[in-house]
């Protein structure tokens, strides 16, 4: 009886050890998804290119959601974008992280009274790191990425686990804002 318990414990410990090793690789090779949801994306090119060179941190742009680890929500989200963002987020393979850029993702920012822009991003999808500002400087963008790496190291970047555990709550909120989440956009033709 005792021995089985002991072996179970080691299995858990082994899993945790593996997870920590995985965390080392994950935080040193964050691939971000090239999805410019809003205006803060204009500060991403300086961060990606010569001036700040994100690649020295191991970050790089990726073409499709399946390949990416980090989803950058760069700025305000209109309802139309939020719908696509949810599709995109659910396509990404786990573990996945979200960085919210700008005041608009925190509390609506300058568009708090707009009829098309949501006010609070973390009601719809979980956010790991916020970068405040309108628009945030490139330095603070880079700082946000370093913060995300620290969070992964401390095992605090677990938004994707939250999304799985509280899926009903998130789905409920999404439905409140969007009506039906999955729609066909053929009616534009």
């Amino acid at each position: 009886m005792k021995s089985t318990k002991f072996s179970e414990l080691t299995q858990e410990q082994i899993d945790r050890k593996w997870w920590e090793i995985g965390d080392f690789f994950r935080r040193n090779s964050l691939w971000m998804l090239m999805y410019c949801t809003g205006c803060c994306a204009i500060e991403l090119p300086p961060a990606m290119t010569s001036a700040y060179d994100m690649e020295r941190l191991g970050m790089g742009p990726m073409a499709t959601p399946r390949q990416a680890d980090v989803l950058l929500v760069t700025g305000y989200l209109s309802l139309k974008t939020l719908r696509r963002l949810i599709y995109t987020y659910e396509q990404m393979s786990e573990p996945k992280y979200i960085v919210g850029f700008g005041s608009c993702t925190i509390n609506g920012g300058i568009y708090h009274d707009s009829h098309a822009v949501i006010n609070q991003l973390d009601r719809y999808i979980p956010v790991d790191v916020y970068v405040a500002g309108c628009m945030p400087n490139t330095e603070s963008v880079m700082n946000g990425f370093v913060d995300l790496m620290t969070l992964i190291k401390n095992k605090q970047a677990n938004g994707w686990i939250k999304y799985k555990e509280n899926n009903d709550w998130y789905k409920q909120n999404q439905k409140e804002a969007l009506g039906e989440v999955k729609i066909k956009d053929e009616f534009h033709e």
Partner: protein
Amino acid sequence: MRKLKLFLGPQHPGMHGNAAIHMYVEGDIIKKSYLLPGMLHRGFEKGMERHSFVNNISLIPRVCVVEPDINELAFAMAVEKLADLKVPERAEWIRMIIMELARISIHLMAYGGLGGPTGNYTLMYHAHADRNTILGFFERITGHRVYHQYIVPGGVRKDLPNDGIEADILDFLTDLENRYDEYRDLGIENPTLLARIKDTILLPEEVVWELGVTGIGMRSAVNKPYDIRKKMPYCKYDEVEFNVPVSNYSDARSRVDLKLKEVVQSIRIIRQCIDKMPEGKVRVPIAQGQSMRWTVPKGHVYSVVESSRGEFGYYMVSNGGTHPYRVGVRGASYPQGLLGIEKYMPGTRIDDAALWVDTMGVCSPEIDR
């Protein structure tokens, strides 16, 4: 042959803004395509009605993300026309410097953006490095890198800083001019890129008139200097010497070529501005501290500036109150972005779709607003 429906965007490395192109392809040829805009819709026109004229200054740069200064200038010019404000002379020259620096930066970004769809990333990195220097100048002049909120009704917010910024700008421009040939070699003189951009994505003259394309797209096709800066000069554009580069055959290459030639002209304009700039005040006080109670006389005015993509205009209606009654934004890329993609993208190949968007200059935030 099987007909496929493909989505170019909103999440796609080839799309530079948050917009989608839905296209039906047969083989590699696009048979039907249309733009799905609205993913950047923030209700700007409604939002501006809800803010006073002074508060709107912080809202307007956000209409077009990549090129915020044209919004500030067009808005300021509209308010000045309505309220009959006389802008101090030094402010006009400073505005021109800002506008031309912004034009260089957006043209560099567009030229570097050519590296995205064609795969020449070295070009992109070099162009963005130079753009970042210009953003640094903006930070020194205005305090912000991207959204400056610098050009306000009645002048500019503050004078140029007193730390030799003019000399630094001139140094940078000389440096950029020296590397101009290098830029051309890396980009539009590059044989592999030429194969992609030469004789594709044509824009004939009758299409220009049908869609209402302005700016570089128009000038590259009609061979006439149709530039707002020349035709109806604002600021002090009638007191500086510059040429408007034109061509009579509009393919992707000639449009990119015109962008590079405009950079040279902009450098010329900035040099003259720094030369001719007088000393003096930079702003007339408008609201005397009562920004919430400042009213603008009744009227309706359409003010235009020449952006990097063409005619960018603000239609403003005031009913004599503190808030604008209606503000309409004419995005410069509205015609080619919506009707152009629907009518003239079919027939090109999938390879060229991203290049189409790029060289026609489609900027999704100003379409959605």
